[in-house]
Protein backbone atom coordinates (compact mmCIF):
# COMPACT_ATOMS: atom_id res chain seq x y z
CA UNK A 1 0.00 0.00 0.00
CA UNK A 2 1.43 3.42 -0.93
CA UNK A 3 2.51 5.58 1.98
CA UNK A 4 4.03 8.94 2.75
CA UNK A 5 7.66 8.75 3.79
CA UNK A 6 9.74 11.29 5.68
CA UNK A 7 13.43 11.75 6.40
CA UNK A 8 15.14 12.03 8.75
CA UNK A 9 13.15 10.43 11.53
CA UNK A 10 14.98 12.54 14.10
CA UNK A 11 16.94 15.75 13.61
CA UNK A 12 18.90 17.50 16.33
CA UNK A 13 20.14 21.00 15.61
CA UNK A 14 21.52 24.05 17.33
CA UNK A 15 19.43 27.17 17.71
CA UNK A 16 19.91 29.46 14.73
CA UNK A 17 20.80 26.69 12.32
CA UNK A 18 18.87 25.87 9.16
CA UNK A 19 17.13 22.52 8.78
CA UNK A 20 15.45 20.85 5.85
CA UNK A 21 12.84 18.20 6.45
CA UNK A 22 12.07 15.92 3.56
CA UNK A 23 8.93 14.13 2.49
CA UNK A 24 7.94 11.87 -0.36
CA UNK A 25 4.16 12.08 -0.80
CA UNK A 26 2.06 9.31 -2.29
CA UNK A 27 2.79 9.35 -6.00
CA UNK A 28 -0.60 10.20 -7.50
CA UNK A 29 -1.52 12.77 -4.87
CA UNK A 30 -1.75 16.43 -5.83
CA UNK A 31 -2.07 18.17 -2.45
CA UNK A 32 0.73 18.29 0.08
CA UNK A 33 0.80 19.55 3.63
CA UNK A 34 3.00 20.15 6.63
CA UNK A 35 1.69 19.92 10.17
CA UNK A 36 3.47 20.02 13.48
CA UNK A 37 2.79 18.61 16.92
CA UNK A 38 4.53 19.94 19.98
CA UNK A 39 4.97 17.14 22.51
CA UNK A 40 1.69 16.28 24.21
CA UNK A 41 -0.31 18.85 22.27
CA UNK A 42 -2.64 18.82 19.32
CA UNK A 43 -1.65 18.75 15.70
CA UNK A 44 -1.35 22.18 14.06
CA UNK A 45 -1.56 23.04 10.37
CA UNK A 46 1.41 24.83 8.88
CA UNK A 47 0.96 24.97 5.12
CA UNK A 48 -0.72 23.38 2.12
CA UNK A 49 0.77 23.18 -1.36
CA UNK A 50 -0.89 22.55 -4.69
CA UNK A 51 0.19 23.01 -8.27
CA UNK A 52 3.67 24.11 -7.21
CA UNK A 53 2.56 26.90 -4.96
CA UNK A 54 1.36 27.52 -1.44
CA UNK A 55 -2.42 27.38 -1.32
CA UNK A 56 -2.83 28.17 2.36
CA UNK A 57 -0.62 28.86 5.36
CA UNK A 58 -1.13 29.43 9.05
CA UNK A 59 0.12 32.25 11.21
CA UNK A 60 2.80 29.87 12.49
CA UNK A 61 4.26 29.67 8.98
CA UNK A 62 6.21 32.91 9.06
CA UNK A 63 9.18 34.09 7.03
CA UNK A 64 11.55 31.57 8.59
CA UNK A 65 9.61 28.73 6.97
CA UNK A 66 9.54 27.79 3.31
CA UNK A 67 8.37 24.81 1.28
CA UNK A 68 9.53 23.48 -2.02
CA UNK A 69 8.90 20.66 -4.43
CA UNK A 70 12.36 20.43 -5.93
CA UNK A 71 11.55 17.50 -8.21
CA UNK A 72 8.65 15.23 -9.09
CA UNK A 73 8.73 13.27 -5.88
CA UNK A 74 10.12 15.24 -2.94
CA UNK A 75 8.43 17.92 -0.85
CA UNK A 76 10.56 19.82 1.63
CA UNK A 77 10.08 22.10 4.61
CA UNK A 78 12.95 24.46 5.38
CA UNK A 79 13.32 26.31 8.65
CA UNK A 80 15.93 29.01 8.15
CA UNK A 81 16.96 29.92 11.66
CA UNK A 82 15.62 27.46 14.19
CA UNK A 83 14.37 28.52 17.60
CA UNK A 84 13.91 26.47 20.73
CA UNK A 85 10.14 26.62 20.27
CA UNK A 86 10.43 24.94 16.87
CA UNK A 87 11.11 21.67 18.67
CA UNK A 88 8.22 19.43 17.67
CA UNK A 89 7.20 16.49 15.54
CA UNK A 90 6.69 17.60 11.95
CA UNK A 91 4.30 15.59 9.84
CA UNK A 92 4.00 15.68 6.10
CA UNK A 93 0.69 14.65 4.56
CA UNK A 94 -0.69 14.25 1.08
CA UNK A 95 -4.11 13.80 -0.44
CA UNK A 96 -5.78 13.09 -3.73
CA UNK A 97 -9.24 14.24 -2.72
CA UNK A 98 -10.71 14.37 0.76
CA UNK A 99 -8.55 12.06 2.82
CA UNK A 100 -5.14 13.22 4.03
CA UNK A 101 -2.53 10.55 4.67
CA UNK A 102 0.22 11.33 7.12
CA UNK A 103 3.85 10.32 7.09
CA UNK A 104 5.67 8.92 10.12
CA UNK A 105 7.01 12.32 11.13
CA UNK A 106 10.36 13.95 11.81
CA UNK A 107 11.14 14.73 15.42
CA UNK A 108 13.03 18.05 15.45
CA UNK A 109 14.96 18.90 18.57
CA UNK A 110 16.47 22.39 18.79
CA UNK A 111 19.16 22.83 21.44
Amino acid at each position, binding site marked *: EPEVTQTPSHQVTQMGQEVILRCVPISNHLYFYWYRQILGQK*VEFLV*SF*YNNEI*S*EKSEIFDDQFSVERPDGSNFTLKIRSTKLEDSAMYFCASSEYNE*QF*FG*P*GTRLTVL
Partner: protein
Amino acid sequence: ELKVEQNPLFLSMQEGKNYTIYCNYSTTSDRLYWYRQDPGKSLESLFVLLSNGAVKQEGRLMASLDTKARLSTLHITAAVHDLSATYFCAGIQGAQKLVFGQGTRLTINP
Protein backbone atom coordinates in the same frame (compact mmCIF):
# COMPACT_ATOMS: atom_id res chain seq x y z
CA GLU B 1 -12.31 30.56 12.53
CA LEU B 2 -13.01 26.91 13.09
CA LYS B 3 -12.42 25.58 16.58
CA VAL B 4 -12.70 21.91 17.46
CA GLU B 5 -13.27 20.65 20.98
CA GLN B 6 -13.14 17.06 22.10
CA ASN B 7 -14.30 15.48 25.30
CA PRO B 8 -13.30 13.79 27.33
CA LEU B 9 -9.57 14.48 26.98
CA PHE B 10 -8.68 11.41 29.02
CA LEU B 11 -10.66 8.21 29.20
CA SER B 12 -9.80 5.09 31.10
CA MET B 13 -12.12 2.19 30.61
CA GLN B 14 -12.32 -1.53 31.06
CA GLU B 15 -12.27 -4.09 28.32
CA GLY B 16 -15.71 -5.06 27.16
CA LYS B 17 -17.32 -1.70 27.93
CA ASN B 18 -18.84 0.80 25.53
CA TYR B 19 -18.03 4.47 25.42
CA THR B 20 -18.35 7.55 23.22
CA ILE B 21 -15.93 10.37 22.42
CA TYR B 22 -17.52 13.66 21.46
CA CYS B 23 -16.25 16.22 19.00
CA ASN B 24 -17.87 19.64 18.77
CA TYR B 25 -16.91 22.23 16.23
CA SER B 26 -17.65 25.91 16.10
CA THR B 27 -18.44 26.77 12.49
CA THR B 28 -19.38 24.99 9.31
CA SER B 29 -17.05 22.20 8.30
CA ASP B 30 -17.66 20.36 5.05
CA ARG B 31 -16.03 17.23 6.33
CA LEU B 32 -15.09 15.69 9.64
CA TYR B 33 -12.16 13.35 10.19
CA TRP B 34 -11.13 10.90 12.86
CA TYR B 35 -7.52 9.86 13.32
CA ARG B 36 -5.78 7.48 15.68
CA GLN B 37 -2.29 8.10 17.04
CA ASP B 38 -0.23 5.57 18.99
CA PRO B 39 2.53 6.97 21.26
CA GLY B 40 5.42 8.34 19.22
CA LYS B 41 3.74 7.38 15.97
CA SER B 42 1.98 9.06 13.10
CA LEU B 43 -1.70 9.70 12.52
CA GLU B 44 -3.71 6.88 11.07
CA SER B 45 -6.85 7.86 9.19
CA LEU B 46 -9.93 6.12 10.61
CA PHE B 47 -12.94 7.84 9.10
CA VAL B 48 -13.88 10.67 6.77
CA LEU B 49 -17.46 11.85 7.26
CA LEU B 50 -18.76 13.82 4.33
CA SER B 51 -22.34 14.73 5.02
CA ASN B 52 -24.99 15.20 7.67
CA GLY B 53 -26.15 11.92 9.10
CA ALA B 54 -23.09 10.06 7.83
CA VAL B 55 -22.29 6.95 9.83
CA LYS B 56 -19.25 4.78 9.27
CA GLN B 57 -18.15 1.66 11.08
CA GLU B 58 -14.91 -0.26 11.18
CA GLY B 59 -14.68 -3.12 13.62
CA ARG B 60 -15.47 -1.87 17.13
CA LEU B 61 -15.41 1.79 16.11
CA MET B 62 -18.33 3.73 14.71
CA ALA B 63 -18.30 7.41 13.79
CA SER B 64 -21.24 9.67 13.06
CA LEU B 65 -21.78 13.26 12.03
CA ASP B 66 -24.56 15.72 12.82
CA THR B 67 -23.78 18.92 10.95
CA LYS B 68 -26.76 20.77 12.38
CA ALA B 69 -25.54 20.19 15.93
CA ARG B 70 -21.92 20.55 14.78
CA LEU B 71 -21.17 17.31 16.54
CA SER B 72 -19.39 14.13 15.65
CA THR B 73 -19.12 11.08 17.84
CA LEU B 74 -16.75 8.13 17.91
CA HIS B 75 -18.37 5.17 19.61
CA ILE B 76 -16.34 2.27 20.91
CA THR B 77 -18.13 -1.04 21.34
CA ALA B 78 -16.85 -3.79 23.64
CA ALA B 79 -13.43 -2.17 23.97
CA VAL B 80 -10.28 -4.23 23.70
CA HIS B 81 -6.77 -3.31 24.85
CA ASP B 82 -5.55 -2.83 21.26
CA LEU B 83 -7.77 0.22 20.94
CA SER B 84 -5.70 2.11 23.52
CA ALA B 85 -4.41 5.21 21.70
CA THR B 86 -5.07 8.93 21.31
CA TYR B 87 -7.97 9.75 19.03
CA PHE B 88 -8.21 13.06 17.22
CA CYS B 89 -11.09 14.56 15.36
CA ALA B 90 -10.51 17.30 12.82
CA GLY B 91 -12.70 19.61 10.81
CA ILE B 92 -11.80 21.23 7.53
CA GLN B 93 -11.33 24.97 7.15
CA GLY B 94 -10.96 26.47 3.72
CA ALA B 95 -10.02 24.10 0.94
CA GLN B 96 -7.75 21.66 2.74
CA LYS B 97 -6.68 22.89 6.18
CA LEU B 98 -7.37 20.35 8.90
CA VAL B 99 -8.15 21.85 12.30
CA PHE B 100 -7.62 19.28 15.03
CA GLY B 101 -9.18 18.84 18.42
CA GLN B 102 -7.00 18.37 21.48
CA GLY B 103 -7.18 14.61 21.28
CA THR B 104 -8.70 12.02 23.61
CA ARG B 105 -6.22 9.71 25.28
CA LEU B 106 -7.96 6.38 25.63
CA THR B 107 -6.61 3.70 27.95
CA ILE B 108 -8.31 0.34 28.01
CA ASN B 109 -7.55 -1.82 31.00
CA PRO B 110 -7.91 -5.60 31.13
